[in-house]
Each structure stands twice: as C-alpha cells, then as structure tokens.
C-alpha cells in the first residue's frame, strides 16, 4: 500500500516535470573499487561452510537499496546499482572469487530485509541496514562497516550550522519516521513527506529550511547536487550500518568482518567511499572498528 502510493507519487513527480526525482548518481560514476577477484577462492574455505558453497557455485545474491543515491541507487536505465553499499558487496564477492558482473543484485526495501534473509532469497543484505538488538534477534548483522547519524541537509547558503539553529525552522523528512520525531523534539516544525526525493525537492526549491535523516543518505543527495546542498551539524544519533546474513550460517560473520577489515587496511574502503558518498565533498572518515562476532 505504502509503496504503491510511492510509485504513484513518483510517477506524478515525473509528469509534473522539472523535477529532480531521479538523479544521475551512479550512471556517470567512476569505476569505484578496482576489486581483485580472488582465484581458486573455494580452496580458501573450509568444507561445509556457506562461503565455500558460494565460491564453488560462483553465485552471490546481494540485497541493496535502489532508491538511495550514493548508498544504493539504480536508475531506470542502469544495469547495476551503484553506491557505497554495492561497493562493499563487490569487495565481499571478490573474496569469494566472484567478479562484480556475476553478482545478482536484488532490491530490498526497509520492510523486507529480514524476510529476504530468513527465506534465503538473498545471501547478504547491504542496504543502509542499521545494527540494532531487535534485528540481531532474527538475523545476523556483521559490522559496522560504516557509522552515521542523524544530520541536516540544507541549501549551500543556509545559516543553519548547529542543532540549536533549527528551533522554529521547517524541517522535512519521511512522515512517521524517527528522524522527524527527533527534530520535532529539537523545536523544529516537522514537515513529513512520503519519500526522501520529495523532501529534497522541498529543500532545493526553498519551501523548507532543511531535511533530516541519516547522514549517509543526506550525503548521497548532497553528492548529486554538491553546488546547491550541504550536510551540516554533528550527528545527533548513531546509526551503525551492518551487513545482514542469515542466522543459519553464523560462520559468515567472521568472514565478513575479516574481509572488510582487510579492505579497510588496503585502502579499498576509502576508494569505495570516495567514489560514492565522498562526491558530496565531505572528507573520507576513519573506517569504524567492527564488533566481535557472536560465538558460533
């Protein structure tokens, strides 16, 4: 229902013309990480592990977002999604000896990430997937591979630069979201919209003063319009993005953590960031330290 309406709204947006609903993030991207696909990867893994199976089959299904520029975005004419999350997926796949073009991408939305993992529809979920205790009850989450928090996206000439400045201003986000609640608590007038892209439009055309949600999402939109938008204020919440895997395959966790640690040390993590979210002009942050995996 919600998403049916989103599509209607999106279609209407396009009809209305002159709209920036579909950015071009991704289509003109540089190559991103130049991954080195491991050879004979299957030999690296112990028998009976899920990694060995995947490496032998040469197939990996990864769930990513298709509608978040910079994080995971696939335009109507793109062959594969682009963004920081798909880059992380490519790094993981390469370790299994799977080239980027052999990865099967599947769109996941916030509501179907757990069901997709539980049913085995996807092998991994890398979709701005915040690690929470509730989620860790039902699925595995390795990471964090990226830490973000709620921030503000404002026009490049805006005076807002600390959280105190939002009092009395109009700030948009998605109706019913926690971000909107938090900003209301800070004294801003909340303006709920159905989608982030509608909300960005409101900032771009000057109707509202700012947009708020996870900084990573905001950076993605800022990267599309680096001259007109900027991300401001210290994050005032903490979201830790993890890689989702099925609890039936607990051995995946250590592999994910080891592979990503290696990528952080080799600089692949930095390259992935600079090719995607980094386009917004923000400095590449220190990669986060990852949680220990639960004992299998």
């Amino acid at each position, binding site marked *: 229902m919600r998403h049916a*309406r989103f599509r*209607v*709204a999106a279609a*209407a*947006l396009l*009809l*209305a*013309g*002159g*709209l920036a609903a579909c950015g071009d993030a991704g289509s003109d991207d540089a190559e991103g990480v130049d991954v080195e696909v491991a050879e004979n990867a299957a030999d690296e893994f112990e028998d009976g592990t899920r990694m060995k199976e995947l490496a032998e089959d040469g197939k990996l299904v990864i769930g990513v977002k298709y509608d978040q520029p910079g994080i995971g975005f696939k335009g109507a004419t793109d062959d594969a999604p682009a963004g920081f999350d798909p880059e992380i997926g490519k790094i993981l796949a390469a370790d299994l000896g799977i080239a980027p073009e052999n990865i099967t991408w599947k769109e996941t939305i916030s509501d179907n990430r757990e069901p997709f993992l539980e049913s085995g529809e996807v092998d991994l979920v890398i979709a701005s997937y915040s690690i929470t205790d509730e989620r860790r009850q039902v699925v595995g989450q390795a990471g964090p591979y990226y830490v973000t928090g709620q921030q503000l996206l404002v026009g490049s000439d805006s005076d807002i630069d600390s959280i105190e400045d939002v009092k009395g201003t*109009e700030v*948009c986000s998605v*109706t*019913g*979201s*926690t971000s*909107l*609640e938090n900003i209301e608590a800070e004294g801003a007038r*909340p*303006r*709920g*919209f*159905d989608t982030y892209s*509608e909300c960005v*439009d*409101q900032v*771009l*055309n*000057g*109707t*509202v003063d700012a947009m708020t949600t996870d900084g990573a999402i905001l950076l993605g939109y800022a990267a599309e319009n680096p001259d007109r938008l900027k991300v401001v204020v210290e994050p005032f919440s903490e979201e830790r993005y993890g890689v989702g895997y099925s609890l039936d395959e607990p051995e995946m966790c250590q592999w994910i953590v080891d592979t990503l640690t290696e990528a952080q040390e080799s600089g692949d993590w930095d390259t992935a960031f600079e090719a995607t979210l980094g386009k917004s002009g923000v400095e590449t942050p220190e990669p986060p330290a990852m949680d220990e995996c639960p004992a299998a």
Partner: protein
Amino acid sequence: MDDLTSEFDLVLQAFWLTIQLAALSGVVSVLLGTVLAAMRVGPVAPLRVAAATYVNVVRNTPLLIVFVFVFVAFPNLGLLVGTPFLLKGVLAVSFYTAPFVAEAIRAGINAVPLGQAEAARAIGLTFGQTMGSVILPQAFRAVVPPLASVLIAMTKNTSIAAVFGIVEATARMRYFTNNSPDDTIVFLVFAAGYIIIVELLSVGAWGLERRWRVAR
C-alpha cells in the same frame, strides 16, 4: 497506549489542524463550487465552457496528483514557495472539491421548476438577482444531503496532507504507530476522532434539512 495518554495534547493538536484544514477548505470549495455552478447554468457561453472544462478536468484528476502539483511541482517552478503549508493544503483540497460541490448544486438548481426562473425574469430580475434571490435559496434546500456527502468525503480527503508536510491527524497517527507496540489502539483512537468530526457534519446537515424543509 502510554504514549497516547501522556501525549494526548499532540492528538488534539493534530485533530485541530484537521478541523482547520477541513473547515477552511469547506468554505472555499462551497463558494468556488457555487460560482462554478452559476457559470454552468448562466447565459454566458464562454463561462459555461470554462466551468464545464474545469469541472471535467479536475474531477478526473486524482487528489494525490493535485497535491503533488501544489506542493512539489509549483514550488519547483518558483510558485507558492513562501506560502504556509496549511494554506497550500486548503488550496489543494478546495480546488479538488469545488467541482463536486458545483455538480451537487447544479443538480439542486435543475430541481427548481423552470417556471420559477421564468417568473423571475418576467418581473424584470437580472440573472444575478434571479440566482441569488429565487433559484439558489430553493436549490440549496435540495442540495443539503448530497453536499453533506461531498463535505464528509472532503474531510477524510484532508488526510492526504499527511504526506505533504502537514502534521494533521493521519500524520500524527503514523508518529504513534511508529512507537507503539499495539497499533490497534492507536488506529481506534484516531478513527474515533474522524468519526466524531464526520458525525458533527451529519448532524449539522440534518439540522439544516429540518430548518429548510418546505411546508407541504
């Protein structure tokens, strides 16, 4: 449930906004609808065509699209940027509702016997006087039940504003369902709010109908 009781003022504020949105839109759409109906039955051909076109185009446009135009497309073109959200909501809802009001009123006008208009013209009344003093007072009587339905539908239609920046009842309901483990109670409380508003409208319409009843 705890949230609902401790933050009940938020519920009331949200319904107050729904009522403001509905009341202002109701007034604007009844005025605009009456003008449209008068244009459609009037003697000036270009006005008749204009009103008929407006009614047919807008009546065939989904309300969501009207909202997208008012809240997204126009501001992108630099229009309505500084307009308060409530006003934009009223604009969208009444722009959409006016054709329905116009058609209900036109049905009422058609129900007034032709002899009435002929008699008014025979004693020298202008078109404006004929409408204002003879036809519309009689038409409104016949129009009350269908007009009440249109206004009730309009009141519920204001909920679309929830995804266009206005924190009215439906938007506030989403805020509570986001936090509450038991959505059902939240839904029931907000449904009750809408039922109360709609019932007030129904009772008002019933009162008008009784007051204006023709003594036969």
